[in-house]
């Protein structure tokens, strides 16, 4: 009916090891033979849980990364994209979540950066402003192109980016979670824009997990799960339960260790905490020996909550009570001394000091325990490091090996080792098994269970549904900065339920 703008066939992307080489001989891939089409004059919604592969697929379409296998056809012709610029020249524009504008330049100068029109060697500012105005007008936006981008709201910046994309005569526009920071009215304006682009014969890929938005603006949707396309539907046939079922998948026969027992003493109590002045208050508790999972989509505020508890992020109201004391405003050092530990999401920049070796990294949070009179005892430190290497099965030549040369799994074990050395009473884990091979994952799961068994309270943020459900005694689900569910482990705690709460905020 309408011409096919884009056809992606059998797109595959492997996971890459720390040595930079792809891991081919495994079923676990970032993308596994995915097909994706886009026709002219349609909005194709792309849906999937965290880590399903949506971003990767679109990055391939946008020319940012190459596929390891598969083909991309643009306008019926097979194409190999060299880079993002190449993609743009072939008519594909990518509107990222983090906007790609220079805040210190005005709108017109941003839009024409790199292709400033000239008249006898001189930059033709008048033409720039004229053309920018025209482009913005075409989107029903009366922004003054002389405005500094730093003064624009997120929504306005987005429109500028869209206008910029349009100025390249794009036929395909990829939008990654475009409504994340927009108000209701701004979303309406955006949707108007999208409808107009659609009417002009453009094809739009719309990545989102906001169900209420799909219906308004989408024509059809496709679901990705674990790197595969699991199906789609026309928007006229939309049924939220079916989509959730497709996103969540079926139960996996994995056994998660569960030998620990929840005790009655409360270790952590978050009362009425507001992540920002505009988000609702959060209440959360973790008991001794309890593994509490924290689920939700990326951007729902899980890491922000963890960092607020750990004293590295200021919050807008409420309090954190740890071991019965109000620890609001305590520094991380003070909290660590009191037994709190936080294994952050980004192990390379926040978990490990990459210039140092295993021994130095694992002792960093517990230096006083390996020192006498302020001087570090090399012997004590080596003993501690050796003990951790053994306990955590860290694969390394010795404790003196630089952590930068370890694999992802072993790096994560180092960070875990660092926190275990502090003899924590509350262990906060942020995506503890992300980017780690299966063997190491299982080991870490066993360790978490053992740690909880010794009476440590564990708060675990995870985007992997089987892990979240399998490891936790209880699961909180966050959405848009609020806790929308508190679910106990049991046969009713299914992946579908988690996805439903994450996306819809309700069952």
């Amino acid at each position, binding site marked *: 009916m309408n011409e096919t703008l884009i056809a992606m066939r059998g797109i595959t992307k492997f996971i890459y090891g720390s040595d930079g080489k792809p891991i081919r001989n495994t079923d676990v891939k970032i993308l596994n033979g995915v097909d994706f089409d886009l026709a002219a004059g349609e909005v194709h919604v792309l849906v999937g849980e965290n880590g399903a592969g949506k971003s990767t697929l679109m990055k391939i379409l946008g020319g940012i990364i190459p596929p390891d296998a598969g083909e991309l056809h643009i306008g019926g012709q097979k194409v190999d994209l060299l880079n993002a610029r190449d993609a743009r020249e072939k008519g594909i524009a990518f509107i990222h979540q983090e906007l790609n504008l220079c805040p210190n330049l005005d709108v017109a100068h941003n839009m024409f950066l790199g292709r400033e029109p000239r008249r006898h060697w001189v930059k033709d500012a008048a033409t720039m402003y004229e053309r920018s105005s025209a482009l913005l007008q075409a989107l029903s936006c009366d922004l003054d192109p002389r405005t500094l981008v730093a003064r624009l709201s997120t929504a306005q910046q987005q429109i500028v980016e869209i206008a910029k994309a349009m100025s390249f005569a794009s036929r395909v526009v990829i939008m990654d979670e475009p409504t994340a920071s927009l108000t209701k009215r701004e979303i309406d304006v955006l949707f108007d824009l999208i409808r107009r682009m659609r009417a002009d014969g453009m094809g739009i890929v719309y990545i989102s997990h906001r169900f209420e938005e799909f219906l308004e603006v989408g024509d059809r949707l496709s679901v990705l799960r674990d790197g595969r396309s699991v199906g789609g539907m026309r928007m006229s046939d939309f049924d939220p339960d079916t989509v959730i079922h497709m996103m969540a998948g079926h139960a996996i026969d994995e056994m998660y260790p569960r030998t620990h027992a929840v005790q009655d003493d409360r270790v952590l109590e978050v009362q009425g905490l507001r992540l920002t002045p505009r988000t609702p208050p959060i209440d959360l508790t973790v008991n001794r020996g309890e593994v509490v999972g924290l689920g939700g989509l990326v951007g729902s505020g899980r890491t922000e909550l963890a960092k607020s508890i*750990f004293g*590295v992020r200021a919050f807008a109201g409420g309090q954190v009570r740890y071991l019965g004391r109000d620890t609001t405003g305590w520094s991380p050092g003070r909290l660590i001394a009191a037994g709190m530990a936080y294994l952050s999401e980004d192990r390379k*920049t926040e*978990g490990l000091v990459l*210039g140092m070796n295993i021994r130095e990294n694992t002792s*960093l949070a517990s*230096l006083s325990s390996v020192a006498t009179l302020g001087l*570090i005892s090399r012997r004590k430190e080596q003993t501690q490091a050796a003990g951790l290497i053994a306990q955590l099965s860290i694969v390394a030549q010795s404790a003196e090996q630089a952590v930068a040369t370890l694999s992802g799994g072993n790096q994560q074990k180092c960070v875990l080792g*660092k926190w275990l050395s502090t003899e924590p009473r509350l262990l906060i884990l942020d995506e503890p098994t992300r980017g780690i091979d299966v063997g190491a994952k299982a080991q870490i799961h066993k360790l978490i269970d053992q740690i909880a068994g010794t009476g440590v309270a564990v708060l675990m943020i995870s985007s992997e549904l089987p892990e979240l459900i399998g490891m936790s005694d209880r699961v909180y689900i966050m959405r848009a900065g609020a806790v929308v569910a508190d679910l106990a482990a049991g046969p009713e705690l299914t992946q579908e339920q988690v996805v439903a709460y994450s996306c819809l905020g309700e069952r």
Partner: protein
Amino acid sequence: MAKGAKRPFGAVPGRMAAWIGRHVSFFIFAVLAVLATLCVRNFAARDNLVIILKQSAIPAVACIGMTMVLMTGGIDLSLGYIVGLASIIAGILAKTLLLPVPEVVLAVLLVGALIGLANGLITQYLRVPAFIATLGSGYVIYGLAQIVSQGSIVNRLPKGFLAIGRTDVLGLPSAVFIAAGVALGFHILISRAIFGRQLRAFGFSPKAAALSGVPTARINVLVYAISGTLAALAGLLFTIRVNAAQPNMGGGVFTFEVVTAAIVGGTSLFGGIGSVAGSILGVLSIKIIENCINLLGVSYHLYLAVQGAIILVAIIVGNLTHHRA
């Protein structure tokens, strides 16, 4: 200072390169010592070696402080001017006001500490980048030194005061031993103490360090205070050595020499990497070069230019051998 600036050549250096990188200061020193002995007459004469030691003592003291600042990824461009201020204050207190020696020493070190503290507070809490903060404060300090001195030099200082640095011990002036003691103390602090480990972690990765409980703000301020104190100590010893207190002592040239020595000694501009031992070897290395230039009759001004070339080479070598994530 661009914290977290990326290294341009590849990711992890080979094992060989990394090993060289860790011991580069020793290699440079050894090569220079050998070359000098072979190529320059009278270099290895005992009297000449003593001169080199004596000349290295005072920059070594200041270099230790600068090394610590560089290890956090910062810089102290006011160091040389603190030397001058310390000098004139020492002179006035010792001679004009005839204060007892211990009080003079304490007062001078305190001045250095306070100035360093101010530098640290401005850098950490006012968020002014270190190079601008210490550039500005350097000029302020220089002006203060000029005001305090009222344009004149204080010389012929009291014997008791001079004795601190001039007492002969085993053929060397006591100043050398003071420097050695300071070096030893800070070597232990940086390589063995908790503070040193935290300092290195902070220098490599401020975020990871802060999340591991390292008191990053306190350390950042402290290193500048230490640098200021050691700069003041250097000024004190300089004054004793030349028996004259003057506000122009040290200056920008001295700051530059100290930075050169630190970098030749293996300190990385990006933070995290550095050592007292390395910096001492760095000071000795450039003093060897200076000594040879003197012995060979080459103009001192050429040496200043050569110093620049040395630091460039050291930076390039450092970039190739330092791992930087």
